[in-house]
């Protein structure tokens, strides 16, 4: 099946504060943003840029799958949660921190925002892998309902806060979805 990249975006930040600054610059009113961990914030912001001019956005749909990848899973949120339970003398496990100790929450946040009832999946790889991305996205279309895939590399750990997102569709557009193209766009 020939697939096309309809839209793509690359974002990277050096500090958490920069992520919030970027959110403010977009003039979006979505208070839930401030509850999110960095991983979810990154995915959310990229998806806002991808979807902002989409026709009939927010109309519930089941035919768009969200397929995410990263290296560190939710290790940033895990490390934060660990500090709340490390010491039994100062023990305050928090459900609002714990819920982000799963990488796939970012896909849930994007689904809630955009009313997307399709597949959401999360894969972990040692590093960005254009071949696995290509194969996994292609495979996602084996689900007979799926017509579009929002694919993302979204990573937030230690010094690295980055997201690379593509909207991939069966409908013809200018950029053909290929391993070489994924690599080129990721490195842009």
């Amino acid at each position: 099946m020939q697939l096309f990249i309809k839209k793509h975006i690359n974002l990277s930040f050096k500090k958490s504060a920069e992520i919030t600054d970027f959110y403010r610059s977009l003039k979006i009113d979505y208070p839930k943003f401030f509850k999110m961990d960095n991983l979810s914030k990154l995915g959310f912001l990229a998806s806002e840029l991808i979807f902002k001019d989409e026709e009939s956005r927010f109309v519930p749909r089941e035919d768009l799958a969200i397929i995410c990848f990263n290296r560190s899973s939710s290790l940033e949120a895990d490390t934060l949660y660990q500090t709340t339970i490390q010491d039994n003398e100062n023990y305050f496990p928090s459900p609002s921190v714990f819920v982000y100790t799963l990488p796939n929450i970012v896909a849930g946040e994007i689904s809630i925002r955009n009313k997307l009832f399709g597949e959401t999946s999360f894969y972990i790889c040692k590093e960005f892998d254009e071949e696995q991305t290509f194969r996994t996205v292609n495979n996602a279309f084996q689900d007979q309902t799926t017509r579009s895939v929002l694919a993302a590399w979204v990573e937030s750990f230690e010094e690295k806060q980055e997201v690379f997102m593509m909207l991939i569709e069966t409908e013809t557009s200018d950029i053909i979805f290929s391993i070489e193209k994924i690599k080129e766009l990721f490195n842009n």
Partner: protein
Amino acid sequence: MIVRIGDNIISSLGFTTEENYQAVKSGRSGLKFYDAGTLGLPEAFTASLIDKQRLNENLTGLETDLEKASILSVISANNEAKIDLSSEKVLFIFSSTKGNVDLLESPSVGDSRGLFLWQSAQLIAGYFNNPNTPIVVSNACISGAAAQIAAMRELASGLYDYAVVIGADMLSKFIISGFQSFKALSPEPCRPFDADRTGLNLGEAAATIIYANKGFNPLAIQLLQGAIRNDATHISAPSRAGEGSYLALKNILQNIDKEQIAFVNAHGTATLYNDEMESIAIARAGLDTVPVNSLKAYFGHTLGAAGVLESIISMHALKDETIFPTLNFHSQDFENQLNIPIKIQKTNKKYLIKMLSGFGGVNAALIFEKS
């Protein structure tokens, strides 16, 4: 469609599928009460824990219990499948919710910590000298089903002949305290679907299914179809309408004769909202007369292993023409009444459905067929 050619379960109820299956058949639970102080937790809990001494007697010299249990599970599954695990035609797919997260408790730095899920997957596949980069699925509590769907897709694409699907999670202070903070844990053995259910219990397990895209099918059971759908309503609470779960079921039920469904093995965690949500989704999918069960009161909720472990028990039950009752279930209070057997039943029908749901609004459904 892919064919099961070998499997294994390592849990509190045994180290082989047979041990685990017979334990369930005799109505035995692996859940135990653990005093405060166990695993460093300030509060007591009820859970199903693997016998670590037995684990370490069987395999020495590797990094973590999670990896040891996974490797032992693959060895045991391949005693049945007998494939060359070092072949480039074999793909390893590893499913875990939290991997080695317990290592965060002991501070040290660098990649050598083994905290990354891909490290565990590489170590496991590397133990068998497999040349391919393993796939790692981490999709909250539906990971074990997502991994089987990934296996279907990878085998359908023709690159591989076999997929080794491993689901594994071990318990730690990290995981248990988190579920305690959600007030999701029951202090006593859980009661899935029961009107008086009080929450879930957690469990440890490593489970493996080896799938082939064709060939010998010793159990005569295949995975026909699988789907994942999102609720798009809340990151930690199930949908009140069961939307994602219903859509996943609807998707796998296309062209299926519902009269031929032997049973539905639900997620059935025994939390108030999960079980109610599933009752709605099952009824919406037109399955309210089909027998429904949950295995959580036998094994606890084994997180990333649950989808693999519960599929294995259910496949063997289908082969054995048996529908297991839901341990500790007495009566339901759902608006949509389900068919929840309280005694072991016989069946000669040919399909089984596996359901799972998790944080992030994710839901999965799988359908298996006996030929």
